[in-house]
């Protein structure tokens, strides 16, 4: 217990220094939000393995290290820059280094009118009151300790504001990279997407830092989809193998609003995603697709909560895991249907492929239905490659390795194909190809 208390004190002390340093520059409403957030954190403390939401996830690496704030002025190595997704993205591009907007690597020009793309820090400085009604609206006080820490410490991030009725043709790219000297550090990033009535936009969030070192990224994304608007969000996490990644998505959907979220987790030693989607009016629709690929001793954990509060909303969640080595996957999906949310149509599916004997997945799909006229279905399967399919492919001349890779590829491919942003899809496909042995034999087979 003393260790936990010390951790809280450390974060509080760190916050006091942070607040003193930024007291003058931040607007009063934001200072209040930050103070409230650190108070919530101190109340909760860091998670332990006794917390239900962290029961299957080794929290050790997240709570044991003393993470120093990452230096936003650290030089960025060339290989980190080279790994930034660039090809094929012609819209606005916001690059963040250690949680700080890097104007030299970015382009804020979305190439069209009707959409505003900015760095959070700049926007807070130039229009201090502008985001007061929005920032922190979607993330509820019940979010986890890491969301509180983000609210307390995040200074920068991406802001995308789409005017009513506007269709943003090019996806907005938000890319985070970390640079450091190997000492454990933490970067906070906060993204806010506001889609006005009847608008459409797509946002790609990319996290990738090939450098070694157990540093932590703590990201929070808030999405407000107003009536009849659409937001597509694509998250690509391909952090280096020792890095830690904690991310929260909070989305609020208005009447007939639509959200499509595609989350791909390919890297990091420990990757935790918390998703919180809430229908606040009738007729909303959300799709949550996810794929995690694990090997070594890596861990990926997704906890999602979809809350149907109003009638006639539809949610489709499909998560897949591919786990090799001693990897461990966790899927915990809760669909809540509130009283009165009649005609809810909810489907939740988690499928996992275990490629080794030591691979492990904890899958917990859950429905909590408090309305009586709804259509809700959920399911979970975890298994190995089908031996009959393996033999079928081998009996046609494919090597065992190639057959395994092809079937693994096929398992992932339906989710990958659903990502309609081609350059992003290519990145994921290339990554999978690089990690599937025997692809030389399959060069012609894999697109």
């Amino acid at each position: 217990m003393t260790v936990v208390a010390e951790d809280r004190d450390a974060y509080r002390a760190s916050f006091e220094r942070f607040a003193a340093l930024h007291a003058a520059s931040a607007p009063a409403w934001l200072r209040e939000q930050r103070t409230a957030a650190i108070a919530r954190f101190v109340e909760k403390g860091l998670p332990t393995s006794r917390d239900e939401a962290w029961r299957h996830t080794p929290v050790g690496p997240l709570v044991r290290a003393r993470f120093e704030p990452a230096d936003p002025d650290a030089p960025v190595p060339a290989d980190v820059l080279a790994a930034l997704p660039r090809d094929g993205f012609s819209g606005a591009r916001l690059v963040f280094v250690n949680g700080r907007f890097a104007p030299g690597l970015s382009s804020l020009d979305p190439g069209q009118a009707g959409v505003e793309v900015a760095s959070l820090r700049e926007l807070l400085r130039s229009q201090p009151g502008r985001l007061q009604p929005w920032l922190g609206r979607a993330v509820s006080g019940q979010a986890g300790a890491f969301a509180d820490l983000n609210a307390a410490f995040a200074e920068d991030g991406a802001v995308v504001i789409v005017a009513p009725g506007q269709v943003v043709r090019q996806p907005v790219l938000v890319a985070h990279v970390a640079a450091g000297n190997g000492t454990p550090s933490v970067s906070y990033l906060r993204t806010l997407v506001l889609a006005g009535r009847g608008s459409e936009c797509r946002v790609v969030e990319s996290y990738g830092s090939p450098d070694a070192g157990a540093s932590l990224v703590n990201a929070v994304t808030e999405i407000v989809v107003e009536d009849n608007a659409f937001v597509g969000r694509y998250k690509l996490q391909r952090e280096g193998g020792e890095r830690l990644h904690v991310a929260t998505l909070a989305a609020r959907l208005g009447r007939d609003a639509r959200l499509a979220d595609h989350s791909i987790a390919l890297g990091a030693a420990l990757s935790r995603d918390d998703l919180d989607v809430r229908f606040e009016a009738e007729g909303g629709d959300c799709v949550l697709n996810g794929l995690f690929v694990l090997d070594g001793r890596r861990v990926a954990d997704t906890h999602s909560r979809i809350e149907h509060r109003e009638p006639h909303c539809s949610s489709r969640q499909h998560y897949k895991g591919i786990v090799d080595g001693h990897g461990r996957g966790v899927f915990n999906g809760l669909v809540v249907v509130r009283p009165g949310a009649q005609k809810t149509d909810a489907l939740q599916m988690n499928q996992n492929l275990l490629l080794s004997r030591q691979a492990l997945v904890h899958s917990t799909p859950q429905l909590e239905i408090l309305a009586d006229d709804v259509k809700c279905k959920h399911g979970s399967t975890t298994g190995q490659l089908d031996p009959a399919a393996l033999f079928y492919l081998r009996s046609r001349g494919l090597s065992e390795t190639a057959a395994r890779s092809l079937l693994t590829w096929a398992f992932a491919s339906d989710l990958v194909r659903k990502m309609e942003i081609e350059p992003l899809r290519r990145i994921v496909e290339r990554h999978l190809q690089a990690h599937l042995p025997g692809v030389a034999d399959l060069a012609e087979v894999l697109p």
Partner: protein
Amino acid sequence: MLEIKNLHARAGESDILRGLDLAVRAGEVHAIMGPNGSGKSTLAHVLAGRPGYTVTDGEVLYKGKDLLALAPEERAREGVFLAFQYPVEIAGVSNVYFLKAATNAIRKHRGLPELDALDFLALLKQKAKVVDLDEDLVKRAVNEGFSGGEKKRNEIFQMAVLEPSLAILDETDSGLDIDALRIVAEGVNRLRGPERAMIVVTHYQRLLNYIVPDFVHVLVEGRIVRSGGKEMALELEERGYSWLEKEPAAVPAGGR
């Protein structure tokens, strides 16, 4: 081409093949018939190298080589093809890509250059006609959502593309209506040739009206108890198998 001598094999814990002898020469079509559980499918699977079977005695020579020492993919590359009784659905992998990978794996093994995309598509188009397979099905995921007849036609289509030396057809006729059966049989007949041997495993004599074999063998309790010409199939259709089950297995192996 193929010489099976005193083959004993188990599936899991049970003995299925108990001293099977069979010799097949290039250009011949051999039909293997027999009651349920006699070991017909086990024979097909053992020849193709399916995991889960253990050969406890005997040997199989294919083109003079020890077939049983080869992995399934090596057998395929050497020209052995099994048309599955229950073809497997493979979501997310199109027939075109799958067959291209298979064709090139086989060509590479034989020291031939890989086919380029255009040549390969032309080949597929031509072969699809052999079994009247819709081009749309050729492009779809392997067997996914195919009807029973379409799956069997897809097997013969794959055989046409891969051009094996030894084709083993495992109950390719079962579950087919007469029109589908005719299409499949015509496809098989067009693939008959002096360099290619076929083993047709079937439960029903009906298939042999369309694929006329050179030899018919009756398998009972893991051994060939009787061998003869194509006319024997008709006799079996009339008399069933029970009269053979009672006879001692004192017959010469067919096809020498």
